[in-house]
């Protein structure tokens, strides 16, 4: 069951003085996010991540294509009761206090007075703002505003949560806290779709990621598959530099430090390499399969040459 299905969604902006020139911000995008999944939408700045989210929130209208959220058209206002959204670098009504802001947003989402009264204090505590009282938001730090932003996105207990760059501009502590909050939502079984260009966050939180670059989907895959994909390569370390000449044909690369050799070898060549090392009476120290990193995957998908959609 998919929580979000995007079918050919695209957006062109008219630019220039006469607005006759079209600049594609998002080329037709096809994407599906499973229910309960934490999905990372990765891309460098200006890749089309925010445009995709604005389209899904019907803040801008699509040039073509459509999408469904929880099985209904993304344009259906009733769907919006069941989704939460944190915009990038959110700005809230700074004349309000945090409880007032949450009460306002909860009202707009149709939450009853009784539920609002019950939930607001607890939610503020949950996002680490239990002690802010009635202080106006204009006196909040950026990290505090981000936490208020997350609180407003979940005040109505949505099933699907969209977060646009939730960690951007936060210090390491703030990032950690926001990461913990997202992990908590994930543990509750919420479907989370979040855009980011901070790969370590995506790696820590996501089940699957998509890479978008210049308005085009460049790759999509499960984090575990990406980690194991690289490579089919292993790192072999041994003592005995004299054996190097006998095995050099099997190695992709090698580094020698004194008597210790570190070599990279294709997985299918490991047995041959180990046989040779035994024959040469070299002392084996370790054999470690190499894992791919999300960074490698990201860089490969966003480089100009690589345009394969896997």
């Amino acid at each position, binding site marked *: 069951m998919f929580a979000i299905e995007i079918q050919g969604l695209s957006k062109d902006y008219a630019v220039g003085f006469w607005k006759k020139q079209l600049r594609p911000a998002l080329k037709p995008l096809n994407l599906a996010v499973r229910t309960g999944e934490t999905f990372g939408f990765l891309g460098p700045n200006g890749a089309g991540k925010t445009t995709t989210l604005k389209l899904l929130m*019907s803040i801008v209208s699509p040039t073509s294509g459509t999408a469904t959220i929880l099985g209904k058209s993304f344009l259906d*206002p009733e769907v919006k*009761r069941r989704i939460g*959204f944190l915009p990038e670098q959110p700005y809230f009504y700074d*004349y309000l206090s945090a409880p007032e802001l949450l009460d306002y947003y909860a009202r707009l*989402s149709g939450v009853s007075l009784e539920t609002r009264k019950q939930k607001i204090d607890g939610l503020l505590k949950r996002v680490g703002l239990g002690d802010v009282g009635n202080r106006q938001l204009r006196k909040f730090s950026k990290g505090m505003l981000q936490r208020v932003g997350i609180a407003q996105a979940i005040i109505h207990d949505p099933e699907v949560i969209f977060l646009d760059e939730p960690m951007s501009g936060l210090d390491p502590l703030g990032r950690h806290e926001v990461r913990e909050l997202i992990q908590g939502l994930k543990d509750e079984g919420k479907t989370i779709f979040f855009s980011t260009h901070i790969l370590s966050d995506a790696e820590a939180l996501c089940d699957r990621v998509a890479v978008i670059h210049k308005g085009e989907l460049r790759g999509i895959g499960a984090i575990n598959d990406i980690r194991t994909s690289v490579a089919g390569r292993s790192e072999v370390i041994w003592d005995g530099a004299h054996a190097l000449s006998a095995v050099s044909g099997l190695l992709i690369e090698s580094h020698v430090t004194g008597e210790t050799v570190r070599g990279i070898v294709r997985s299918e060549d490991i047995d041959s390499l180990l046989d040779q090392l035994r024959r040469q009476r070299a002392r084996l120290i370790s054999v470690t399969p190499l894992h791919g990193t999300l960074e490698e995957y990201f860089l490969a998908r966003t480089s100009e040459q690589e345009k394969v959609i896997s």
Partner: protein
Amino acid sequence: MISRLTAITLNTFREAVRDRVLYNLILFVLLLVASAPLFGQISIGMERLILVNVGLSSISLFGVIIAIFIGIGLVSKEIEKKTLYTILSRPVRRWEFILGKYLGLIMTLVVNTALMTVGFYIALMFTNGLHKTDALLLLAIYFTVLQFLIVTALTVLFSTFSSPIFSAIFAFALFVIGTFAEDLKNFAAISKGAAKLLATAAAYVMPNFASLNIIAQTAHDQGVDGRLILFNTLYALLYSASAVAAAVLIFERRNLK
């Protein structure tokens, strides 16, 4: 729907109330009203007339200034600061947003005018004592509120497609033109050919604030025809509803970058 509309209306009102500019304006107009008796001393026996003119004109002018200066940012500020993103990602229709913002500003103006009216009547009581005919002044204030309905609707309309500065210029220009609406009608009556057509069209399209201004009439204790109250009310409601509807139509189609 009603709950969302009420929430947006009350939030707009709360924003205005917490805006220091509003307090300054109230303070300023109260000072002006309080100083009116001083003008009265210049011309003996004219205290009431001058106080009524100065007081009611101040209420009208400051209301229009508040309507325009808050109105121009009503929608554009929400777009610029992106607060609208978190609103439109909820089950809020765009027309509900526009109407809620409009009603919020109207509520602000009504409360503001009510406060000024209280101040004005207090000044009147101390200057001249209160008389039965002073009740007529409330009608002039009611017509002033009808003016606010139109000015606010026009400002909100401009605010959906224009920058705050241009919205302010357009709204002020229309307010000035509307104040001289009767002259425009007279000009249409005496002109010929294309000029007559244009002037007539302009006289009907432009808001007519002249017929909503009965300050001078009430200051001289002249009565007001009951039909004028009905027609002015209907006119203000229809004109402002049309302007708000146009604002909704534009805003529904707008891409918010």
